[in-house]
């Protein structure tokens, strides 16, 4: 039997390993991305799925929220940076900061709420992928591939924090891939981002006391 990491795709092949998957200790981690044992699933045969259109979906560009506009503008700032347009990038960041500042606060800022939102996103991805595939939009499909993995990792880490508390992070650093958002717990960043494959220098360390 083969077990696949739902985050980075690492395969634990029992035929090639000494220990059957079920007998691995509970604190065993994915050797590639550090995901928990519970993030692995037994390899299942591919199933043909049918696209079910939902007719309530209509684009309304005029109704982007302040939070979304913050991301639209910080994304365009990145776009300018990649085109070596430093001044334009700075101006888009000014707009992004404005929208971040006017985004309304939430009343119930709890770790449980963060976990719930992540779980909802995980459940949402297959449908978004269907819509992307149906529209032959490979860029949107790529967003689903990366986003689902990153979201699963966040969900896994937040749930672990809810169980283990502060001791989970006492002696270790937290790293964020500045390209795809993958979060990694460890002393050093991974050799290669397990999701988007960029080198370690693209990882940012979350500083203590910052």
């Amino acid at each position, binding site marked *: 039997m083969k077990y696949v990491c739902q985050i980075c795709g690492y395969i634990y092949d029992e035929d090639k390993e000494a220990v059957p998957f079920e007998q691995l200790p509970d604190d065993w981690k994915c050797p590639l991305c550090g995901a928990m044992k519970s993030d692995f699933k037994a390899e299942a045969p591919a199933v043909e799925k049918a696209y079910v259109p939902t007719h309530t979906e209509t684009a309304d*560009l005029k109704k982007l929220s302040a939070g979304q506009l913050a991301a639209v503008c910080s994304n365009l700032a990145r776009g300018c940076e990649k085109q070596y347009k430093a001044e334009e990038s700075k101006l888009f960041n000014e707009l992004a900061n*404005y929208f971040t500042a006017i985004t309304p*606060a939430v009343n119930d800022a709890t770790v449980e709420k963060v976990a719930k939102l992540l779980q909802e996103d995980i459940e949402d991805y297959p449908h978004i992928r269907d819509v992307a595939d149906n529209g032959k939009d490979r860029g949107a499909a790529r967003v689903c591939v990366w986003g689902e993995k990153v979201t699963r990792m966040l969900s896994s880490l937040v749930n672990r924090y809810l169980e283990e508390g502060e001791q989970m992070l006492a002696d270790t650093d*937290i790293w964020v*891939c500045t390209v795809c*958002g993958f979060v990694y717990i460890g002393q050093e960043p991974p050799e290669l981002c397990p999701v988007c494959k960029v080198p370690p220098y693209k990882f940012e360390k979350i500083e203590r006391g910052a």
Partner: protein
Amino acid sequence: MELKAVRNLRLCTKDCLCLYVCPYGATDTEDSIIDISKCVGCGICAQACPSGAISMVPTEYPPQQNKRDDVISVLNHLAQSKSDGEVTARQIAASTDKTGLKRLMTAVAKSQRLMEEDIEREGGFMLPQSGNTHELLMELIENPPTSDFPKDAAEKIMELVPNNEENY
């Protein structure tokens, strides 16, 4: 297509061949950034560079790909959820005294924003030069969300980054 040379400082190993081959001295600057006002786009520096640190980028970009309404709609819905997650995590990070939680929530907020940016990029805002971007900036200038909206910044962007879909 007009091209300009740009140097990736992370790849540059200071072999300095670009300095020797540029007929206009565009590569010889105090901050190592190629002076595009001098660059004529001949590409000799990019060919000569042994570390592949110089690339030729166009001054005008082609229009971005059209997006279907249903794709934009589902991406928008996801973007809003990422935004809610980002705001929630940032609020926790700002108010907690627990150092581990503070770092974890800071990481979650950053990660959510990065995913959200990626969603917006594929949801119709890939290029700052796009018609979409210009339409949005125009709308914000005409109907600012609040009185302290940085209108000058939006106007300056429209002036610096021309709309590349006007003639299509």
